[in-house]
């Protein structure tokens, strides 16, 4: 199972085994990783699952869609490496992915 590392804004790190096919958001919610709210349950309507993806992983992810960019406009302090974790589907190639959660989601 791919290992996903979630680092919160204080630097606390959690490494979670996330099943292929789940999203990075679901990996966090199901394992009580704090820092991701996911109020809309993954339907790309809330931007409260916002994460910063470690630079070297950015181009390994599926390309960001317009609708995701639109939602990211509303996220808390978006940056160049911002993504919505409900849109990142875990697969073997993402084993080792590191994401940082923002200091808050709203």
């Amino acid at each position: 199972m791919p290992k996903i590392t979630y680092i919160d804004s204080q630097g606390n790190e959690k490494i979670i085994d996330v099943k292929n096919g789940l999203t990075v958001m679901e990996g966090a919610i199901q394992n009580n990783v704090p820092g991701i709210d996911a109020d809309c349950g993954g339907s790309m309507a809330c931007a409260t699952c916002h994460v910063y993806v470690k630079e070297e992983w950015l181009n390994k992810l599926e390309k960001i869609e317009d609708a995701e960019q639109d939602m990211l406009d509303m996220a808390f302090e978006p940056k160049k490496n911002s993504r919505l974790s409900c849109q990142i589907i875990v697969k073997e190639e993402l084993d080792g992915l590191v994401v940082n959660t923002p200091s808050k989601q709203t």
Partner: protein
Amino acid sequence: MIKTDVVIVGAGPVGLFAVHQLGIIGLKSEVIDNLDKAGGQCIELYPDKPIYDIPAIPVCTGEELTKNLLKQIKPFKTNFHFNERVQEISNQNNNWIVKTNKNKIFSSANIIIAGGVGSFEPRKLPLKEAEKYEEKSIFYSVRDKNKFKDKKISIFGGGDSALDWALELSKTSKVTLIHRRDEFRGSEHTFNEVKKLEKQGKLNIKTKFQLASIEGDKNIKFITIKNDEEKIIKIETDYILSFFGLVMKLGPIAEWGLNLDKKHIPVDSEKFQTNKKGIFAIGDICTYPGKIKLILSGFHEAALAARACFKNARPNEIYKFQFTTSSKEIQERLGIKTK
């Protein structure tokens, strides 16, 4: 004080169907929602998106579903209290007293909380200083545009609200529109209009910038914005308008003494009652073993909670199960003329 059989918190699809289920068994309800309209997530988050899993409706949009629910409850002439947040709940002689942030007070034997993921509130600016200027120099909606005449206004956002107000206010004021990227998600037509004004020097656009600081004393004097390259620009500003959509905040619901499991209210799956007698929770906000956050589950929960409300609202009457197809009583309540 408004007396009723059931106070419903939330006018999302589930709250609306609760009105129906209460109405057909003869109970009156009053509905309160912090939004300015009915429909909850369906109307606020996905009015134009199709829903495919409402029983017997192969497809409808969030807006169509809302309209049809409103049509279905029309006969009950229910009062809606929009733009009001339910703030406090207390118990007086076995009756629940419900108070809104606009100090409207309700008294009722039952409360049905159909609050979804919480009340919709504008997404606030990320800076701490923003709080102290709120409703003075910082606004999340425009109620009276005259206030902004002949002023220096910084507008944040990339959607229709930001573009529309940039266009409108630039007629009378000095407007700077600030957005985090070059692409705007608002309507192309408005965007082109805004671009035209920029070319004519009637409005400033700063893209790839975000708010960095707010400076002032009682009122804002200027703001600074910065881009990814840490370039900082100072903009003289009287008012900030910020349009980053809405977020759902559990807010006051967490302070009513109800058991909470993360952001959900645990209920039994017979009556959908919370840990307090006469307070029910249905729809996205409730949780129980096997709960799925679907509109159809919320409808079922509304049907059962409504029957449980009957016992509290009419302690001396006996609830009779009847079909809408064959019950004259129900059809009368629905305003249907029977022979």
